[in-house]
């Protein structure tokens, strides 16, 4: 169903597309980071694409499995044309930065903050990029594969012992 939009993207941003696939019927486009915002804007504004509902934004950490380590994953939906698409942007660990899509969909505001909080991917141009789920002063990014699951950083200890 959304084959068409992949073709549209290929026609317009051929140099930006690294690869495409449609595992289990989910159309996926892997993009370069450079002109990401242009691609997103294109997806939102073109009448036959009209991806106006930002569905989901997350990061996959391919620690020691793949290079580059992180993949920022966008899921978009178009209410008008009933299409869905998944975009993936691979970024390196050393340079884990992606331009913020806040200006295109305000709905990605918290998703980007969450990705920053839990994975440490920085979204350039985000107006308020700070931790959202964890508290200020938390060290590290818990959803990275190299963060041990039960490494705790307690703020309060037992009553009586002032921490």
């Amino acid at each position, binding site marked *: 169903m959304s084959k068409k939009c992949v073709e549209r993207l290929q026609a317009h941003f051929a140099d930006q597309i690294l690869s495409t696939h449609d*595992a*289990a019927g*989910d159309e*996926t486009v892997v993009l370069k980071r450079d002109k990401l915002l242009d691609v997103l804007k294109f997806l939102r504004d073109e009448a036959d694409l009209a991806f*106006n*509902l*930002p*569905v*989901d934004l*997350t990061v*996959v*950490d391919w620690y020691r*499995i793949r290079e580059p380590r992180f993949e920022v*994953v966008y*899921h978009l939906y178009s*209410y008008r044309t*009933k299409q*869905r698409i*998944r975009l993936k942007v691979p970024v390196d660990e050393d340079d884990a930065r992606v331009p913020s899509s806040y200006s295109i*969909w*305000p*709905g*990605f*505001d*918290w*998703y980007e903050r*969450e990705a920053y909080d*839990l994975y440490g991917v920085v979204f350039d141009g985000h107006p308020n990029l700070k*931790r*959202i*789920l*964890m*508290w200020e002063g938390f060290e590290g990014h*818990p*959803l990275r594969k190299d*963060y041990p*699951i039960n490494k705790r950083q307690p703020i309060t200890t037992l009553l009586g012992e002032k921490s």
Partner: protein
Amino acid sequence: MAEILLETEDGDLDSVPMSLQMGPSHPAMHGTIKMRLKLDGEIVSRSEVEVGYLHRGFEKSCEAVTWTQVMPFTDRLNYVSPLCNNVGYCMAVEKLLGIRATDRCEYIRMIMAETSRIGDHMTSVGASAMELGGFTAFLYAIEVREEIWRLTETVTGARLTHSYCRVGGLKDDLPPDFEPNWRAIQKKCRTLIDDIHALLDKNRIFLDRMRDVGVISADRALAFGFTGPCLRSTGVDYDVRKAAPYMKYDRMKFEIPVGTIGDNYDRYLVRMEEIEQSFSIIEQCLKQIEPGPINVDDGRLVLPNKDEVYGSIEGTIAHFKIIMEGIKVPPGEVYSYTEAGNGELGFYLVSNGEGRPYKCRVRPPCWSLMQALPEMLEGYQVADIVPTFGSINMIGGECDR
């Protein structure tokens, strides 16, 4: 912002904005939200929402357990409608596996998901009424939910955290007396729901508190990623069950109730109407459902019978392998979405071919709703925070995960 507030029209009366912190432990904040408010008198001039007080590491926990063991974690996402989450997760894994559940299984899943949805909407409506001081309506709503929970308990064995679904099937079939029980409960619920309608629908105070409060336009709602009753209250008829019918929803006749202006009262009405639609869907399911197997016929996914486990060596080994190593899911990634109580509940699963999820991301509908809250509150009064926040139906487990 402060500077703007200090300037009044004639410039002679200064008003200093007051900052107020609401929550996280505040009766209206569900215990898990902190709001920093800038107040100009009683008017909220700016607000900032802080979440994360119930972050329980859903994703990290899921990565540490097998595909099947994720089920209890999904229960505790939206703990008001846990069966919707169960179904959503199972469908995601099944999509990744490339299988489809049996017909009977899908009907049962639909029935159970819809009962869960009724419970969810009842809780939401009741809680908003309670927060407005209408404690009686709240208790009526909880009574409806209680009846439904008692029924689900006979099916799933648990009142709230069911873990009822399994990849490729269900824990158990419906009990034989499910249908008469459901009819009896439906009757009881109907009278209670009528009572709630009578208490609230035309109540002048309730109307005044809900009408034209917390308004959001359809465009803004879409841009914020709204789904579910909150989006539908703005007039957008997006419902996953209609837009991309999964299971047997394509065989169901039901309406998508939509609001007009996207205020609290619309959200209330949409929820109340969806309850009616859910009743009708369950009715249709019960008519269409036919006897048959509830699990797919695949020894790699479904646990063997207890007879086989104790009686044959193959059964023991199969049981052991599935329990200890988990079912094997082919490498790949998938995004599967269903309509949960609050909107589109998406699961983005990544598998590397092992018995555990490599990544199990959930797209919580509340998350998108919550980030629009400051916009929905701006310019309204302190007292309006309560119904607006209530009508969003923020569920901590789902929002913070």
